Structure formats: C-alpha cells, structure tokens
C-alpha cells in the first residue's frame, strides 16, 4: 500500500492505462504543458506527447464532442472539464451524443469515454465556480456517474471507467485533490456499481458520497463518543446507478437513515435515496429519513455566507440527534 494523494492516484491511473493502450488519450484545458490545474495529468505530456495529451482551446462543447466522436472509433478519451461549472457547456454533447448514441443506433455505436470534473464548493470561488451538479448527471439514461471519496477510489474508479464501454462521468472535488490515503501497490479496479461501507454500525445509516462521506465519518465518531449512537457510514460512490441493494441492506439493519450531500435540494441524491428506501424497506423504518444538504442559493462569495450555505459534520450530528429525539 502506498500512501498517496488523490491527484497522484488519478495521475497514476492515467499513466498506467496510457502505457497499456495507445488508444487511451487525455484532453482538456491546461492538462498538458501546464500539467493540469490539480496536477492530475502531471508528467503525461512529456511521456506521451501532444497527440495523446491534448491541451485544448477553451471550447468545452467542442472538445468534449471531439472526444466523444473519437470514442466511436474505439479511442478511449479521458476528457477533463476543469470545473464542473464548465461542464454545462459540454452537456449537450455528453447527454445528446455520448449517453444516447448506443440506444439510438440500436447498439451499433458506443461512446467509451470518461469525463472527469472537479465539482464542489472550494473556498470563496463564488456562484459560477462552486457548482455541485450530481443531480443533473445522475438522471441521464446511458451515462454512469461515480464520485470518489478517497485516493483508492479515485484510482480504481478511473481505471474501471477507462476500461468500461459505457460513458462514465467522474465527479471529483476541488478540496480533495491533496487528501492522502492508501492505494494498493498493484493494479486495482474499483467496481463502478455498488457502495462501500466506510464504517460499520447498528443504530443509524449515514449515507454520503465524495466529500460528504468525510462529514459522515466525523459525525459517526462524535455520535459514538458523545452520545453512544452507533452509526453506519455508507459511501455511495456510484450515483448512477444507485446501489438499491446496499441501501436496503443497511437501512433494514439500522432502521434509520440520514443522507448528507453537498448538492442543493430540492432534487438530488437525498431525495432519490429516500425514494429507494420507501420502495425497498419502508416498513423497516423507525423514523422518517432526513436529508442534509446545501441551501438553494447561488454560492455566495462572502466567507460567512458561504459557510452557512454548505452543511458539515455538525449538521449531520444534529440530524441524527433529531431522529433519536435528542435535539
């Protein structure tokens, strides 16, 4: 096991896959000569050259469509959208071309591409650089959506996404690129479907994904030490499809659920997970499930307002205490 950063894990997955298959390429703004805004493609330009590590013009719709077109012929492009906010400009191609081409061609064409993007609110980046857009991507037929919460997942999910014949959107987080964690020394493929139990528990299930897994883990620690509540933390690294069986299994065990997301409500992972709980194990519930989410506002610049707009582990603790009638 190597203890490496999230960005290093992503870089390593790129490097291994590009060394293995000459049709794996990567493209995006500043990913080549500059090495990538978050260093996720560092050193690849020098190693694989400009034909395979493409510094693109700032034309998100254009270069995303270009990568998708190349994938029709078996090229496996890893397309980096520097910020998920810029992905709005590429969504026509991602949704109308990549996600639908297999279906509307009756299975003849497929778009095996990977879209990687940094989402989430960082520090005071304002309304147009702080978006969470999971809820938009997870509702698209034909598109897989995964979101790594640690370096191991960041490495293994990217490896699997490159190999998979379906288009995959990988939602990363601006605040997580320097997070350290254990990654297997040998080649490792994280499943694109399912969920991970990040911490086992018996009294309540805390569902999180990406950065909110860390709020849940911190909350579970506090709940255990200060309140004697045993919380299970389920990491929903696959947002599309969501792990119906995993959600059912955990809630059937704990009988209570809190879903924590950085995305805003209404519409999102929280509402979807609650719908699944209702469909799969409603009568197992001891209390109505609760969601913890951001306020529905364009992200404010002011530090205090920004902090108020986004939840954290304390909000998760509060939600759990409310479930137990302790708040």
């Amino acid at each position: 096991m190597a203890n490496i950063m999230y960005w290093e894990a992503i870089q390593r997955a790129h490097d291994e896959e590009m060394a293995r298959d000459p049709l794996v390429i990567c493209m995006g703004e500043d990913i080549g000569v500059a090495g990538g805004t978050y260093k996720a493609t560092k050193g690849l330009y020098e190693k694989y050259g400009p034909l395979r590590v493409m510094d693109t013009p700032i034309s998100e719709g254009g270069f995303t469509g270009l990568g998708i077109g190349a994938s029709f012929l078996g090229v496996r492009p890893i397309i980096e959208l520097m910020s998920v906010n810029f992905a709005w400009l590429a969504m026509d191609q991602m949704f109308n071309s990549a996600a639908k081409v297999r279906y509307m061609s009756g299975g003849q064409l497929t778009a095996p591409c990977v879209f990687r993007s940094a989402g989430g609110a960082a520090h005071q980046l304002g309304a147009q650089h702080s978006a969470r857009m999971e809820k938009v991507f997870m509702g698209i037929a034909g598109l897989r959506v995964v979101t790594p919460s640690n370096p191991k997942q960041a490495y293994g999910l990217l490896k699997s996404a490159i190999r998979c014949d379906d288009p995959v959107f990988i939602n990363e987080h601006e605040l997580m690129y320097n997070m350290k964690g254990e990654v297997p020394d040998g080649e490792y493929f994280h499943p694109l479907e399912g969920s991970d139990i990040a911490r086992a528990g018996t009294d309540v299930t805390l569902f999180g994904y990406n950065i909110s897994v860390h709020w849940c883990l911190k909350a579970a620690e506090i709940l255990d030490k200060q309140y004697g509540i045993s919380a299970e933390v389920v990491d929903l690294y696959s947002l599309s499809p969501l792990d119906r069986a995993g959600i059912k299994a955990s809630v059937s065990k704990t009988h209570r659920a809190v879903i924590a997301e950085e995305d805003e409500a209404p519409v999102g992972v929280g509402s979807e997970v609650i719908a699944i709980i209702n469909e799969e194990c409603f009568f197992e519930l001891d209390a109505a499930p609760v969601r913890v989410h951001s306020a529905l506002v364009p992200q404010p610049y002011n530090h205090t307002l920004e902090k108020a707009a986004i939840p954290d582990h304390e909000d998760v603790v509060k939600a759990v205490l409310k479930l137990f009638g302790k708040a």
Partner: protein
Amino acid sequence: MKIEDKKRVLREMVLHRRFEERCYQAYIERKIGGFLHLYPGQEACCNGVMEAARPGHDYVITGYRDHVHAIKCGADPKAVMAELYGKETGSSKGRGGSMHIFDGDKRFMGGYALVGGPFPLAAGIAKAIQLKGGDEIAICFLGDAANNQGVFHETLNMAALWKLPVLFVCENNLYGIGTSIERSTAVIHQHKRVAAYNIPADECDGQDIEVVYEAARKAVDHVRSGNGPYFLELMTYRYRGHSMSDSRGYRSREEEELWKQRDPIFILRDRLIKEGALTMADYEALEKETDAYIENEVIKFSEESPEPRVEDLEKYVFADRETQLPWLTGKAA
C-alpha cells in the same frame, strides 16, 4: 465523370428521390411517426461528394435529413425504411427513427438531431483516424443554419489547429427551418466564414452533380493527402418544407419553381440524353422500375417486419452487462 458512372448515379438519385417521396406518402398514411425531413432537390450534393470519396471506407456523419446519406454509404434501403416504420429490422432496430439512421458496418456514423451537433463528433472521428494512421477521412454533411452554432467555430478552430482529416460539406439550402438565410445570417456565402480559421474553402453549384463531383475531388484529395480540413459549400434547395409540419409560408411558390428548373436529376438525365447514353423511354422505365422495387421490396419488408419487443425496452441503454462485469463489479482478472 465517366458515362457509366453517371448512368449508375442517375439510377441511385432516382432511387433517392422516389424513396423520399414514398416516405412522404407513408407519413400521410401514418405509417411513419415523429419528424420527417426529406431530401428532394439536394440529391446532387450527397451523391457528388460521395462519388469523389469512398463510401463504406470513409466515415460519414450528418444531421437529421439523413436517409439518403445512409443509403449512399451502403445502408440497405429496406433497413432505412423499416427504421422509419419503427421496426426491429430497422437500421437502428426501431430505436432511432428518421433522424437517427445509423450503419456502423458501412461507416455511416449517424444522423443527429441537434443542429450543429455533428461538427465536433466529425472532428473526433478524424482525430481517431489520425491516431490510428488510416487513409480514411471523415465527412460531415450539414446545412447552412448549423453554422450559426458555437460548436461550428469551436470545431473549425480545433480541426485546423490539429490538421484533422475532415471534410465539412455545407449544403446551403438557404433556409434554417422556416427562417431564410438573409434573415438569420450576416454572411450568405458560408465559405467566407471559414477563411478566418485558415481552412481552404470553396463554393459551387449544388444542383449539377458533375460540378459537385469536380469540387469534391479537389476537397477529398486535399484532406486525404494529410493537409488537414477542407470546407465545401454547395448551393442547393430543398423542395419540401423543413419537416412535414411545414407549410412553406415563408417563401414564394415562384422561388420554388425557379429552383425546380434546375433539378439535379433532370440536369443529369438531360445531359445523358444529349450525350446519347440514355433515352427518355429509358428514364421513364427507370422510374417505374424504381417504384416497383420500393413498393415490392422496401415497403413490403417494412410492413411485414416485426415490432421491437417491449421486454427489450432497456436493451442498448448500456453495453451488454455480461461483457462489462469486470469493471462493474471490480472483479477484473
């Protein structure tokens, strides 16, 4: 063009025209649903360019007015009509419809219904060709109105920057849905807009197939020789409305008649008659023969083919699950 080729292409163009007219009839009979965009009037564009290219070898992509492009690349007219009928035997197994005809084996990469959407896809196909080192080219057929989308400019810039083997064919039929080019576009002659990107561009008459063919030969040679992209604008006209719900109230019948004086099929037919290679009786026989083929084979096949099974509703959303299990479950060998 050689006489034999012209005679063969005339036969194809008559098939293309009669096929489209038969679609019109089937739509009126409610055998075909959805939107239907027909090609009559523009036949010399697709045929002239593809005579200069290599159908089935070069990759072709286009918009929603796509039936004839698919057939010209080698798609079976029966499969194309069955697609319009929504049948399992259709070129997209009934899942695509008129605007989404595909034939992967013939390298017809599809019809797309977002105006301008195929521009970057075509450049991507060219990028794949460049990476793989083949002698194919990508050919992108779109209308003039697509050039008002942002991706037109984004794609031209990238295609020129990376010297991609892609030929952009602009079929300038003077209307974007129901708005004339004068009312939507500051520059009527589209090839002028391309000059800004250092891409060689040419414009010619899109009604005379021999003119199109000569211009396309130069264009195809340029791209296939590794010189990067090329833009060819063909001045043409669609006889019917944008789609079936269009009553053509935005243009005069006189204008339509004027264009019909320069019908691409009649221009070729009359030239062959003048050259002594064809008689009017031959031509009339060809029309009858074509109609009989469409009725007895194409329509019959489409009528008799089965519907897709409802159980297969979700088939083709994702790749076959069994083949993807190592990545979906993480249990890679």
